[in-house]
């Protein structure tokens, strides 16, 4: 009697372990998806914060390129790139349009994560020239 009960318990434990393992496979996948999504959101948010910070700093600067270089950006093929171990690459492309009245400076900020573009926006500042 006692031996039969012990066997039943053992069989139940084995079945429980089997189902528990199967359930945990699903649960771990859900946790992994949540973690992945949270990391992606964090990277986008960090990139956006850095890009906004750079846009505002460059808005009042005489030399926007120098501002980028001072903050860790590296010039590669006419594009300033910030690449750190944060899950994104921030690219800034500078251009300027000179006219008799002043200079219109444009910096296009683009953040990419692999093949995916996280966001892109322009930072434009106009500086009027003193013309007699």
């Amino acid at each position, binding site marked *: 009697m006692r031996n039969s*009960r012990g066997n*039943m*318990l053992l069989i*139940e*434990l084995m*079945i*429980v372990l089997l*189902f*528990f393992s199967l*359930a*945990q496979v*699903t*649960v771990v996948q*859900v*946790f992994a*998806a*949540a*973690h992945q*999504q*949270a990391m*992606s*959101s964090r990277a*986008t*948010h960090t990139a*956006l914060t850095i890009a*906004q910070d750079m*846009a505002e700093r460059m808005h009042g600067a005489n030399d926007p390129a120098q501002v980028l270089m001072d903050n860790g950006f590296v010039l590669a093929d006419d594009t300033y790139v910030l690449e750190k171990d944060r899950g994104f690459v921030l690219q800034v492309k500078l251009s300027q349009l000179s*006219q*008799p*009245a*002043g200079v*219109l400076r*444009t910096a296009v900020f683009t953040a990419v994560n692999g093949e995916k573009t*996280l*966001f*892109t*926006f*322009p*930072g*434009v*500042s*106009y500086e*009027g020239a003193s*013309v007699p």
Partner: protein
Amino acid sequence: MKGEHTEYRVGVGASSILMILVALALTALSLLALGSARNTAALTARNVEMTEAYYQAAAELQQRLAAIDQAVLRYRQQSDAAFDETWFSACGVEAIWTENDGGLDFLLEIPAGERRVLRATGAAYPRGDERCVLKTHELLPGEENEQDQAGLNLMGIE
């Protein structure tokens, strides 16, 4: 009573009940984590959308200011025409103009997404040291947003 002792045994089915409870708890936690991550992602997407819209509007504003400044310079260098709204319209500058002492005040309103408006005011002068002066630069909520905010006044404080 001497020699009696209570024997505790794990009955058949106890481990199943424990497994069900643990599995349910872990499932609930994982779903909460996933829900939280999705909410954070949605919030980040909205933040990105609003930031992009704001900077697009700010860029357009700077371009219009450049156009106004350029039009004033062209007027000073070339024109004998009246310094009024028609001059700027002819130069392709869109703004709302009102006369001030010796110049023109302008108002620029550019949609900045989510019913917000980027509003700037300034003045343009046909002569003098300054051609174009920016006086205010502000991001305003739209009219419907103001109504929404009024609706959140739960305490009824004016």
